[in-house]
């Protein structure tokens, strides 16, 4: 077993520098790497490019980095729910690249898998395909998309072990799984860190080979963005 544990988020983020490209897992506020985001704010790294499906809300998630003007560019599929984001985008303070959600996921997956490029039908005939190679396969048109390149991937899992093996919970798996191993260094924070051998090898979603550093996260808020309920009968 190759031990990937580091003692805390400070150690986990060693080597982070200004102008790096960072991947951050999560969908909306679900499954975001809360500890790593707080550490990025604390370190005040500047001019980072963030690849993340969403951009958080004004006072939580990536909104915390936005508020401090740390983000040079966002690469996302959906960035609503954030007034400061809107302001920085419309004023030109921040660059935004919007790409289809499935393409975003597959570009992460391709980076994890050593596949430099693939074809997808998403975005064909739209401005998303502008400047990109398009091609017909079996009578249907596709756009060629490239694997992402990133310096760090910050992801959050439910359980993890010392070997870096990860298990996610519910829909908090989302981009977290696909970003593992998709950057030079993958940092995983987990709600529960256990010794190697405690997780069933059959139930591991992401093997530790895709993770360089893992640590026991703390103080999770796990904020709910849209609380929708039914009355109890």
């Amino acid at each position, binding site marked *: 077993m190759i031990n990937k544990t580091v003692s805390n988020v400070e150690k986990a983020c060693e080597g982070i520098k200004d102008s790096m490209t960072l991947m951050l897992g999560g*969908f*909306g*506020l*679900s*499954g975001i790497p809360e500890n790593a985001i707080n550490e990025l704010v604390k370190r005040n790294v500047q001019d980072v490019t963030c690849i993340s*499906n969403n951009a958080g809300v004004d006072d939580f998630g990536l909104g915390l980095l936005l508020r401090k003007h740390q983000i040079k560019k966002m690469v*996302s*599929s*959906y*960035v*609503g*729910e954030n007034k400061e984001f*809107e302001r920085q*985008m*419309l004023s030109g303070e921040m660059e*935004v690249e*919007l790409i*289809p*959600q*499935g*393409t*975003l*996921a*597959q570009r*992460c*997956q391709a980076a994890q898998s050593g596949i430099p490029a693939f074809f*997808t*039908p*998403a*975005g*064909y*005939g*739209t*401005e*998303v395909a502008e400047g990109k190679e398009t091609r017909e396969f079996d009578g249907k048109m596709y756009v060629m998309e490239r694997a992402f390149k990133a310096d760090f991937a910050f992801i959050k899992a*439910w359980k993890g072990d010392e070997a870096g093996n990860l298990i*996610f*919970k*519910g*829909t*908090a*798996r*989302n*981009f*977290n*799984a*696909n970003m593992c191993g998709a950057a030079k260094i993958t940092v995983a924070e987990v709600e529960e860190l256990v010794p190697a051998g405690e997780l069933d090898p059959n139930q591991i*979603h992401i093997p530790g080979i895709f993770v360089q550093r893992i640590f026991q996260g703390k103080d999770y808020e*796990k*904020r*709910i*963005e*849209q*609380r*929708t*309920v*039914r*009355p*109890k*009968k």
Partner: protein
Amino acid sequence: MSLSKEQIAQRIAKEVKDGYYVNLGIGIPTLVANFVRDDIQVEFQSENGILGMGPFPFEGEEDPDLINAGKQTITALPGASFFDSAMSFSMIRGQHVDLTILGSMEVAQNGNIANWKIPGKMVKGMGGAMDLVASAENIIVAMMHTNRAGNSKLLKECTLPLTGVECVRKIVTNLAVLEVKDNAFHLLERAPGVSIDEIKEATEGDLIVNGDIPEMKF
């Protein structure tokens, strides 16, 4: 009588067949789940990573790790599964999802759809819409027939940036059910009490009216 949003959803629910996996967009499409017959087998997919999505949780049972693509707290039904985003779009891109229902700002008579961006306004992003419309064999658009300014949303050509090309198969609006084929809107059903003239008036694109057009049934 122009349909309410609930009635549009109710009419679309009739398009949901036994054995269908369905992806519902935000807005009117979300309401469709409430009207699907309970004697057929249907599963709802949400692109953030669940198949077999159930209703909202009971008060106090919300789980931040269990949401839909609209970021709403949800539940999982027996037989549900969770998966990552890449696998979710494998279901969509690989045409394993049978039916996609989504809203739109514009639809053109060739099936083009524009529903993600208004130049000059804040752009929130396309989310999974471009993947969905580029992939699904069966796409139904749920929308009002005209926009707030009273202009038709069923056009000869889209004026807004496109989400996808030649993909919309069917449209259900507050006025009508229409099929999109052969570069025209084909009127299939009228909302109860709505005349063909009213529909013609509200449709900028070419409208084909063949024979008697029945009123919708729910």
